[in-house]
């Protein structure tokens, strides 16, 4: 019996907290194995260079060095390149260009931080000392870092296999219908937008500890991963050519991911391979400078977008042309992010009947770009909401009114958009109404006047976003280019004493699955919350898993657990029927108790579990003993969380500094299992969205290709005093197609918030003539925008 405090819908305090609060968490870098040595990767200091020669001799002689390896050593052992898990088909039907991605550089380096060699030594200091003694003879080549420039004639070529640096051109939607809509339009809004590159910056840097047991012919890799099974599959089958069952991958406590730890990285494969070569366990932990250089980045789009309307502000059509930076190599899910997870979201919450999207994926001399919290959907939302807000300003319409006029009405679901998705359910007007109430929009003009008296410009901005989460129906994903399924696995094991262990293929790196999943299981089985433990992150303990990303853990992973629970309960019913000497169809189940309908004969789940393991009075002729059920769940649709964000800012015109003074988010997440955890997810998402809008940006020097923002001294991370206190609410419509009715909440804050912040600033500064601003709205950029607007007014 889940108690009142821990039942579904209750803010149960987290089970995982104690170990984190007492220093007992066990992160990858906390793991030391007997005889362990340390790896240091030598990384390219150049954005683009040919490698003529690598002299590792002096490094090999350095104190404490155990081994030094380069790409040649990997090639000699037949080690393959890092694979890509998604294939996009070009507009002319050809597969995308997919150049090799060597685990250690082969002949060329293509971005600053590209790994060139690995030194393994008795201590990390010694490995690093020795790495400085490797002499690499480079021919430095010209580099290109911007996606727009990389597509121009005569620019440096990152890969010979991808002429013009083009990986693919991908299209979605009916171009003719869109042309027709624009021909009929009374008004067209046009915007050029940059969605800047971001570094994910989980506070725990990536790390790995690899070992090989000769006696068991078994590899073990501890790694900072959001999906250890996928890492095992990719690494064993495609890189190292090892039998999958001889590789164990463990993702222990992981200190944040935000997408960056989904991917299979070269360091994992190199360490695993080298652990056998040197016959000792090897640890590698990234320094933060390495994280900045070599973790997959996010975003980096350059977009031209147009929205056509009739004279009442009703949207007729949308046209979007995006150049998406993929970096130097294709990271695991990179091709899907600016395509499948982007173009399909361009309908937003609106009835826009015709949409066409064209995306060019581009190679550049920069770190690979892949999924970062939101992945494609923040980019789509930014395009749609910036267009809508600009359109309202241009047409002199109220920001809420233009949105309401175009919302998909509540009674129109399921709703087929012109960009492939079918939204199952939603009530967009409800979230907007509630957000406006919570934000006290009615009082805004008074607040604006009051700020003006203090010399501050105050503005308000809106974003009504949608996202597609709960990735994903495997057959649809497969048709769209996925090279893997996107189901999830779950197992519910009742022990003889009635205690429960749950095994999930989802991975928690902050999301609190140990709590949320336990709430579900305890409620459904009627056992105490304390009696349920959740295990994740170990390929030896969990049958399979696709991991955690795309706000999928509860919608997909939780649904797999629900299916396993159904199997447990069904089996229990058979056992109960036998023990209670009744027909199976007469047994009712409720909250952990089986009852013969219409009688007082009952038996608890605990007794059933005992009987399953001590099967003395048991239907052995029809039923196996034990109570341990495994299930796989493949969703039938995406889920569609949606919501309304309203941001209020104050701008100091003398310094350009923007302060977010109010931020309201009202989201529709479907059913909520633990509102405390959901709220926490929204807070964190908002911090990353506001961080993108105001602070964060990865900058590569356009000439040298050096990463300018390579430490926290230059990359602006949101700190406590950069952010406001958030007002958060929900207006939920349960998802119609998964057993929990849940939608996912991990990315909403990051997806919805950036356009609200930017439009609030534009609103604030419109009296000064500012019409447009790119992210991040740093003080210098805002100040410059004011100067430019004033200058052009004066001129």
């Amino acid at each position, binding site marked *: 019996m889940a108690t009142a405090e821990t039942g579904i819908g209750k803010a149960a*305090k987290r089970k995982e907290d104690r170990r984190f609060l007492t220093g007992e968490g066990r992160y990858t870098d906390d793991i030391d194995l007997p005889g362990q040595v340390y790896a240091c990767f030598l990384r390219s200091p150049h954005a683009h260079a040919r490698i003529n020669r690598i002299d590792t001799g002096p490094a090999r002689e350095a104190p404490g060095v155990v081994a030094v390896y380069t790409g040649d050593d990997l090639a000699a052992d037949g080690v393959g390149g890092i694979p890509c898990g998604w294939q996009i088909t070009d507009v002319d039907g050809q597969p995308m260009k997919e150049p090799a991605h060597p685990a250690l550089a082969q002949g060329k380096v293509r971005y600053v931080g590209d790994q060139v060699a690995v030194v393994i030594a008795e201590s990390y200091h010694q490995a690093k000392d020795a790495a400085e003694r490797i002499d690499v003879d480079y021919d430095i080549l010209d580099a290109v870092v911007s996606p727009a420039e990389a597509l121009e004639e005569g620019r440096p070529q990152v890969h010979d296999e991808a002429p013009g640096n083009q990986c693919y051109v991908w299209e979605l939607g009916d171009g003719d219908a869109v042309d027709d809509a624009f021909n009929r339009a009374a008004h067209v809004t046009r915007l050029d937008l940059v969605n800047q590159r971001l570094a994910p910056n989980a506070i725990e840097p990536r790390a790995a500890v690899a070992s090989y047991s000769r006696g068991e012919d078994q590899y073990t890799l501890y790694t900072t991963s959001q999906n250890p099974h996928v890492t095992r599959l990719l690494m064993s089958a495609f890189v190292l050519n090892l039998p999958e069952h001889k590789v164990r991958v463990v993702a222990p406590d992981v200190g944040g991911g935000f997408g960056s730890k989904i991917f299979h990285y070269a360091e994992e494969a190199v360490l695993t391979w080298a652990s056998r070569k040197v016959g000792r366990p090897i640890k590698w932990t990234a320094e933060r400078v390495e994280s900045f250089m070599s973790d997959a980045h996010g975003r980096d789009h350059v977009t031209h977008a147009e929205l056509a309307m009739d004279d009442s502000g009703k949207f007729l059509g949308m046209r979007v042309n995006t150049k998406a930076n993929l970096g130097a190599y294709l990271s695991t899910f990179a091709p899907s992010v600016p395509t499948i997870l982007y173009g399909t979201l361009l309908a937003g919450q609106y009835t826009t009947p015709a949409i066409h999207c064209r995306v060019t994926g581009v190679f550049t001399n920069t770190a690979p770009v892949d999924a970062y919290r939101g992945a494609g959907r923040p980019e789509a939302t930014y395009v749609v909401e910036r267009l809508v807000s600009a359109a309202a300003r241009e047409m002199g319409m109220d920001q809420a009114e233009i949105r309401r006029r175009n919302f998909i009405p509540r009674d129109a679901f399921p709703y087929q958009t012109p960009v492939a998705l079918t939204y199952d359910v939603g009530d967009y007007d409800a979230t907007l109404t509630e957000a406006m109430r919570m934000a006290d929009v009615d009082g805004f003009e008074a607040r604006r006047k009051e700020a003006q008296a203090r010399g501050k410009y105050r503005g308000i901005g809106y974003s009504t976003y949608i996202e597609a989460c709960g990735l994903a129906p495997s057959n649809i994903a497969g048709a769209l280019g996925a090279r893997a399924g996107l189901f999830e696995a779950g197992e519910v094991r009742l022990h003889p004493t009635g205690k429960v262990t749950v095994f999930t293929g989802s991975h928690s790196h902050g999301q609190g699955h140990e709590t949320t999943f336990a709430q579900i299981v305890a409620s459904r089985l009627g056992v105490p919350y304390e009696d349920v433990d959740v295990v994740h992150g170990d390929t030896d303990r969990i049958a399979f898993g696709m991991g955690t990303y795309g706000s999928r853990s509860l919608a997909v992973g939780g649904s797999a657990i629900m299916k396993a629970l159904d199997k447990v309960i069904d089996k229990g019913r058979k056992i109960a029927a036998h023990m209670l000497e009744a027909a199976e169809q007469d047994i009712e189940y409720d909250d952990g108790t089986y009852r013969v309908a219409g009688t007082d004969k009952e038996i608890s789940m605990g007794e059933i579990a005992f009987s399953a393991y001590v099967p003395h009075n048991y239907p052995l002729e029809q039923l196996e003993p034990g109570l341990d059920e495994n299930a796989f769940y493949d969703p039938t649709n995406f889920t569609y969380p949606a919501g309304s964000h309203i941001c209020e800012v104050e701008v100091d015109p003398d310094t350009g500094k923007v302060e977010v003074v109010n931020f309201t988010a009202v989201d529709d997440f479907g059913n909520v299992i633990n509102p405390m955890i959901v709220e926490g997810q929204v807070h964190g998402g908002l911090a990353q969205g506001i961080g993108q809008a105001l602070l964060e940006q990865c900058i590569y020097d356009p000439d040298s290709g050096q990463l300018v923002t390579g430490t926290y001294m230059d990359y602006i991370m949101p700190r406590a005093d950069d952010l406001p206190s958030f007002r958060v609410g929900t207006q939920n419509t349960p998802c119609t197609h998964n057993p929990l009715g849940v939608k996912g909440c991990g990315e909403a804050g990051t997806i919805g918030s950036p356009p609200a912040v930017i439009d609030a600033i534009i609103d604030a500064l419109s009296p000064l003539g500012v019409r447009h601003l790119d992210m991040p709205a740093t003080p210098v950029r805002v100040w410059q925008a004011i100067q430019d607007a004033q200058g052009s007014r004066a001129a």
Partner: protein
Amino acid sequence: MNVSLTVNGKAVSAEVEPRTLLVEFLRDELGLTGTHVGCDTGQCGACTVHLDGRAVKACSVLVGQADGAEVLTIEGLAGEDGSLHPMQAAFHEQHGLQCGFCTPGMVMAAIDLVRSYPGASDTTIRAQLEGNLCRCTGYENIVRAVRTGAANMEAQ
């Protein structure tokens, strides 16, 4: 060189390389892995411990600089009976942590903050937590936790 210091109430003496950082000593020599390293520039604060009662970044202190000093880490906060320190309890109560990686440093910084600024406003709490990065919580619940922790500490 030899260093002697008190860590979580226990006297510790060891022969170390001079270039050993306090955080390396705590993690690698003493196995106190609750103190984390999140950056190389002294910005993230994940390694915050108390040195003679004051919050410092253990990545920015050589173990030699802590010679003869008292060091308190996250492992030394809870009571011997396992009862959480009021600030630890407040982080649990207010959901002031998600992935847990910044948490030890955040809790250690928060305790010094409360001692230095009794009755701190939210603005002061946010300003004084400038040296601790969290990527998960958006700081909202951390601020609530520090406020609650302050009240808990005062009540003790």
